């Protein structure tokens, strides 16, 4: 019996597969990127830890996870990650709660001061659809292709939410790709910006007239945005409404306790759970295949297409507006906030240090947040 016991106890080492070892290295790389490279550490650190833990053999921590993803009967004993997946991923609760926090942190002021910037946030979603078509061309079935396209939303919770509905098995690589490229925005955007704009365009100055926005407008905006989006694209309602609920808590001024709880307590605790559980779905069989490589490549294209479409649309607007719009701010119309706006601002300053595009870029950037959520809802409406 003793020998048997020791045999049992070495089972951990012995049963470690090649794939699990590689996945643990992937988890280690994510942790490295989070800590050393500061790539979205709030999410990539827990995801990396979850990846390592889920690939350690015989721990029982993922019990029930696969059954939940495949809608199969659940085992009698659920592991920690099965419990968390059931509590907040399968029912889409965690990403929606994160959105309440994001909304409570977002100031739509720059957008309200300059409403037409909202269109930049529409153009910046082209990468979603372009990447979807590319994924279809490569051979992915429609729902998987759309899930891959959602990387172009440049938005973690949206990606998790849409993937949970359309293709749960792709949730992990799609989410990791989205967060990775969001971190790489300062590297990915400038070359595209340089390629698609002329020096003259880059030097266009946009005078910033800080128009006061009334408190009433700030309070009504989240309500109106929710109503319009939800009536037009009902399946975008969960995402957009939680984002706007958070913003209403913030702007109402009468429930600061709740707004702060949404930004802090709720967001922090849910972020830990969300990251761990997304990481826990990174099994060798779902991650170590050509699909993942394709996902990362197509995701890269999605980010480039986002930027390009935003720029080209802004160029069009510039022509229509008689040369008063700097096309660079079109590149800020994605969800990754506030990096996108900053990258655009700094890029413009490299041409002319006296050019301050920041507030306009911020407006386009918050429009990109709304646009990406809208696009997520549109994808669900067209495919779910």
């Amino acid at each position, binding site marked *: 019996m003793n020998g048997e016991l020791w045999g049992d106890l070495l089972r951990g080492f012995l049963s470690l597969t090649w794939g699990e070892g590689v996945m643990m290295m992937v988890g280690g790389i994510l942790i490295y990127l989070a800590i050393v*490279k*500061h*790539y*979205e550490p*709030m*999410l990539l650190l827990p995801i990396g830890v979850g990846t390592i833990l889920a690939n350690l053999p015989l721990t029982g921590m993922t019990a029930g996870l696969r059954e939940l993803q495949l809608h199969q009967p659940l085992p009698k004993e659920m592991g920690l990650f099965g419990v968390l997946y059931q509590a907040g991923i399968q029912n889409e609760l965690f990403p929606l709660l994160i959105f309440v926090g994001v909304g409570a*942190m*977002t*100031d739509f002021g720059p*957008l*309200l001061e300059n*409403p037409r910037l*909202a*269109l930049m*946030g*529409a*153009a910046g*979603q082209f990468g*979603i*659809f*372009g990447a*979807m*078509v590319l994924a*279809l061309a490569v051979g992915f079935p*429609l729902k998987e292709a759309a899930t891959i396209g959602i990387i172009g939303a440049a938005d973690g919770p949206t990606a998790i939410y849409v993937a949970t509905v359309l293709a749960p098995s792709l949730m992990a690589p799609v989410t990791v790709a989205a967060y990775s490229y969001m971190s790489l925005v*300062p590297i990915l955007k400038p070359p595209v910006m340089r390629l698609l704009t002329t020096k003259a365009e880059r030097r266009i*100055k946009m*005078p*910033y*007239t*800080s128009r*006061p926005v*009334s408190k*009433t*407008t700030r309070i*009504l*905006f989240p309500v*109106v*945005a929710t109503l319009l*989006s939800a009536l*037009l*694209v009902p399946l975008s309602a969960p995402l957009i409404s939680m984002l706007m609920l958070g913003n209403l808590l913030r702007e109402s001024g009468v429930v600061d306790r709740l707004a702060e709880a949404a*930004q802090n307590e709720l967001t922090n605790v849910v972020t830990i759970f969300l990251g761990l559980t997304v990481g826990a779905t990174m099994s060798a069989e779902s991650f170590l295949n050509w699909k993942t490589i394709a996902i990362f490549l197509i995701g890269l294209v999605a980010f480039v297409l986002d930027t390009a479409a935003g720029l080209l649309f802004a160029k069009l607007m510039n022509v229509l507006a008689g040369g008063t719009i700097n096309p660079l701010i079109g590149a800020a119309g994605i969800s990754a*906030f*506030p*990096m996108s706006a*900053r990258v655009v*601002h700094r890029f413009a300053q490299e041409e002319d240090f*006296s050019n*301050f595009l*920041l*507030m306009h870029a*911020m407006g386009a950037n918050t429009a990109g947040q709304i*646009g990406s959520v*809208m*696009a997520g809802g*549109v*994808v669900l*409406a*067209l495919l779910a």
Partner: protein
Amino acid sequence: MGSTLWQGLVITVTGMGLVFLALGILVLAMIALDRLFRPKAEEALETGASEEPSAEEVVAITVALASLLTREEARVGDRQLGSALRDGPGAWSIVGRGQHLSVRKSRRA
């Protein structure tokens, strides 16, 4: 071209159309909100004028903020989601507002 690919193109056109439609309507809504609930414009303008800094002040602010920005630039790596969202636009937006004032001034001058 396969039918799936065609379906994809249809979805792309429909999808981008919807996104533009939704955000376009939102633009109209924002403009309407602004018209309906604009803070008394004259007051704001006057106040704005009286609060506009002098040329010297603009220079001073710009120098101070530029140095602030430089330091922030160095820290940008660890200013991801967490701190960025917590802090809001922070120094950046202050700088933006300061500089824009300066730009406006110089144009008028």
